[in-house]
């Protein structure tokens, strides 16, 4: 890999910023998924179902 030269700090900071923002986005989506699954599970445990999910 080539040397990053005299402006290495800016290059590393740019890639670092992209990694942090994308990691935060991925973490938020994963945590949101778990939160929604947990909320759905608790509601179903309490016997709350949609009309389409009820037995005829």
């Amino acid at each position: 890999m080539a040397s990053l030269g005299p402006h290495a700090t800016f290059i590393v900071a740019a890639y670092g910023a992209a990694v942090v923002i994308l990691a935060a986005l991925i973490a938020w989506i994963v945590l949101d998924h778990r939160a929604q699954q947990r909320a759905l599970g608790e509601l179903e445990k309490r016997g709350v179902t949609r009309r389409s999910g009820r037995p005829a």
Partner: protein
Amino acid sequence: MPLIDLANPTRFLKLSGLLLPWLAGAATIALAVGLYLAGNAPDDYQQGATVKIMFIHVPSAWLAMAIWGMMSLAALGTLVWRHPLADVAAKAATPIGAAFTLICLLTGSLWGRPMWGTYWVWDARLTSVLILFLMYLGVMALWRSVDDPSRAGRAAAILTLVGAINLPIIKFSVDWWNTLHQPASVVRIAGPAIHPTILVPLLVMALAFVLIFVTLHLAAMRNEILRRRVRTLMMIEAQAAPGRG
């Protein structure tokens, strides 16, 4: 399976659940190849190694605009066809678009300091992209401020379509006004003005960013469908509570 069948959220959840691991794998491989090619790309004769910032800056900029374009199509789906997944798609794309626009602004700023001597200048290209970022935040705020998803969806759709006016302004700002930002060097009528040793890594990184977006978007759409199910079940539970007739 006919495309219209995807309008069914349950079917969408099932199909997207099957696709997601493959998309995530493809995005990871494309990103690894892209980063390898970017790391081994030659320095630019004028900009030196800072050209490596381009490999993340330009794909983010393309996605920032493309995601708003996609949201505008979804807005039409909401307002004209009332497609059940249109506002789900638009809402799920908004924070992802904001994130890519932020990456574009930050990496551009970090590229500008060594090349232009300044982190920021209020020229047409930079300012119009900053406006795009603020519009993403505005649509996110609108979604959060209205409880009813269908009402919020219609309001956000109108705001999104109005904001689409900014897309050609961003694209052609470097041609219409004197800007510090360089003119287009890849997407132009005369063809790319970049040497293939730099163009190929850029296009692979762009493919990786697109795959990352598609993966995250599908995952965020699934979350939004689940959130609406939770909301519906909570309303059913509240209506069935004692003392509610």
